[in-house]
């Protein structure tokens, strides 16, 4: 047991401040436990989002001492005993109240993505789709995403340059990669990846990969291959030449 100091953002998007709290910490506690304990004992109306408390749902994303993290998977013993721990809502999105950010923009982006459409000819004679494990390993990596939006929160395009109008962000780049690399899918989203979803905006700083709690190689396995497909389609001189020849015909 030890008494620790916390600074927690209280307020909405327009008015708010960091408020101080103190709490006795027990062995094994995570930051979300601290928030819950403060909520139950000191501030009954402290707003926080959470669900599974086991790193599976991606609801409890906050910024702890400036670092975007899942509060349910951040143990108190990661911090020194005399360290004051600050907890803030995600910066890249509007604040609803206290630690809750308005992430609805992300849901709008997902809706813009052309849905999956399977190729019926991939079925065998019994009507089952056949896919080899080695062909789906990379897609399964992207499908581990728990939509915590930590990657969206640290993406420079969204966070610092506020260009939500131009780029869907890392979360949806890997969703697109997961669809484009799906062995059964027969849609072509590459023109949209370039023109509408803004793959060119990403300058590969890998901040998104660093914060991913699922350790998805967002940049190397998702975004870069998508950028390469755009380049192959639009900027490859050989392909361009072939395109021109065919157009002349």
């Amino acid at each position, binding site marked *: 047991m030890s008494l620790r100091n916390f600074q927690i953002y209280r307020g909405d998007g327009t008015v708010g401040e960091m408020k101080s709290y103190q709490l006795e910490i027990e062995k094994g506690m995570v930051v979300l436990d601290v928030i819950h304990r403060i909520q139950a004992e000191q501030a009954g109306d402290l707003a926080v989002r959470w669900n599974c408390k086991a790193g599976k749902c991606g609801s409890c994303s906050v910024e702890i001492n400036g670092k975007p993290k899942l509060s349910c998977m951040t143990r108190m013993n990661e911090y020194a005993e005399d360290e004051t721990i600050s907890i803030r809502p995600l910066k890249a999105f509007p604040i609803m109240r206290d630690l809750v950010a308005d992430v609805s923009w992300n849901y709008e982006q997902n809706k813009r993505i052309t849905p999956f459409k399977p190729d019926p000819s991939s079925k065998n004679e019994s009507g089952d789709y056949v*896919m080899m494990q080695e062909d789906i390993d990379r897609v399964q990596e992207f499908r581990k995403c728990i939509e915590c939006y930590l990657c969206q929160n640290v993406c420079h395009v969204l966070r610092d340059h506020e260009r939500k109008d131009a780029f869907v962000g890392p979360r949806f780049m890997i969703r697109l990669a997961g669809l484009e690399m799906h062995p059964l899918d027969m849609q072509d989203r590459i023109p949209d990846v370039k023109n509408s979803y803004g793959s060119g905006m990403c300058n590969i700083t890998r901040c998104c990969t660093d914060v991913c709690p699922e350790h998805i190689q967002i940049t190397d396995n998702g975004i870069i291959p998508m950028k390469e497909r755009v380049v192959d389609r639009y900027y490859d001189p050989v392909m361009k030449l072939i395109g021109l020849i065919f157009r002349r015909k």
Partner: protein
Amino acid sequence: MDISDIKTIEHDVIVLGAGGAGLRAAIECSMHGLSTGLVCKSLLGKAHTVMAEGGVAAALGNVDSRDNWKVHFRDTMRGGKFLNNWRMAELHAKEAPDRVRELEEWGAVFDRTKTGLINQRNFGGHRYPRLAHVGDRTGLEIIRTLQDHGIHQGIDVYMECTGLDLLKDGDRISGMVAMWRETGEFVIFKSKAVILATGGGGKAWKITSNSWEYTGDGYGMAYEAGAELMDMEFTQFHPTGMVWPPSVRGTLVTEGVRGEGGILVNSEGKRFMFDNIPDRFAPETADTEDETARWLEGDKEARRPPELLTRDVVARAIRKEVKAGRGSPHGGAFLDIASRRSAEDIQKKLPSMYHQFKVLAELDITEEPMEVGPTLHYFMGGVRVDSDSQMTCVPGLFAAGECAAGVHGANRLGGNSLSDLLVCGKLAGEGAVKYLESNKDEINLDENRAREIIRAATDILNRESGENPYLIHEDLQETMQSNVGIVRDDELLTLGISGIDKLWNKFKNVKADGASQFNPGWHQAIALRNLLITSEAVAKAARLRQESRGAHTRVDYEGERDEWLKVNVVIKKSPDGTMSVEKVERGSPDPELERIANLSIEELEEEVQREAGQP
């Protein structure tokens, strides 16, 4: 208060809850052209389904071609100690394979067999490897697939919105009053049909794998609207929850660990499940270490290890070891996968378990055994519905998934929940479609009732002073944990019921501080009513059922009793406002289904092979 100031949103059907059952129901409704509103307490994609780990049970027969709906049906009935609704268990087993294949059609990517088909794994109570899975994050795959498919179907999704109570026009449903969690503003949904898909009520217990959302909202709302609850005494304690550190006590450890060969040992290093094999399962369970080793290597002649007995059996066995002083340091049993599988296998097959223990317990499961103990996990009982349409006795009110009763009887097999969500979610959607086809006349909103519902919610904020909602909740959790636990008797249950009674009185004077915007104290206070109805229903049904069956264990009435197989305990609200708890005859089963369930496994395997045209 002027009700015309409150926004009214109109749909053909409102689905409350956006886990697997709610999403699947909403997809079905909108596929049939209904204007569909999907209302959920959390953000879309965060519902409990996301936490399901091990897999979805379906007799695809990809790994063992002997599998067939009949064997899945038989396993489900035996797991449920024959208290399941026969027709629902039949529909569930028959339709699960198509529901899983349909997910692939919508983009799901299940782990594959060597020939490129959907892979299936072993699980407790299932005769063959039957659970389609994605590592140990199957629920995530299912909810994301339904979510990504559903958002292009024209479903209107209302996130972070709490359903308060249902509205009726005469006897039938006319909508629901709800509250936006962000602003605290109220909203009226006007619809001829409402599908409840709100899951269970595990938050009434202290040690549970359930999140804050599981407050029995569907049970409370259905009960208040005049629908019946059934089999509420059957609450599943999952045998393997984390026991340490305290803050994660109850968090689920997937049965997949045992499916992949994990064994349970006590503090003396003894594999105690060998001493806990019930007679009913003895012919189908391995009784030597040697046989379980052969089973793990894939020998189809070898019988299944006793660790894969049904959850009720394993949970009681762990409890017995702990009581006898042979538990682990923090009061559980040891679950060991490290000595059974390579580190690489474990990380590949059980990645989220590896991660969960590494981060939360600072333990490497590829090297050390886990400490596990029982945790309240699932409600077999719930809202009583028709087996084919999923409609309650209130016209226009449907329920599906964990919120509904019937498929699982006295105990659910692992993997049968995800399949239940998909099968019954679709059935509920179809039920609503049919209901609307034959109910075309206009409905009226009961404004007085709407006003009452809103006043009940705002009173909590407006009281000068009163009881702290968090403390009432804590008291309730203590009461249920100590008196309505894994092992029950009349004295404990009576104590529990009087404890709940006292909390009802406190609840009448509950007070939340602060404003109405995103106020968790207020939300907690609102959820308490549903938690209290749920708890009272469980405790009273448990006191009435004087036998031990499946997840319901009475030390004062040991063993299954034939007379209790003939009845369900059904609960409804009496006209005087008290809770009526009655035995209701189940009726006789379809003779063909009864025959299948009672065949020996050898007879059934022979029959299935004969039908498949093999000698």
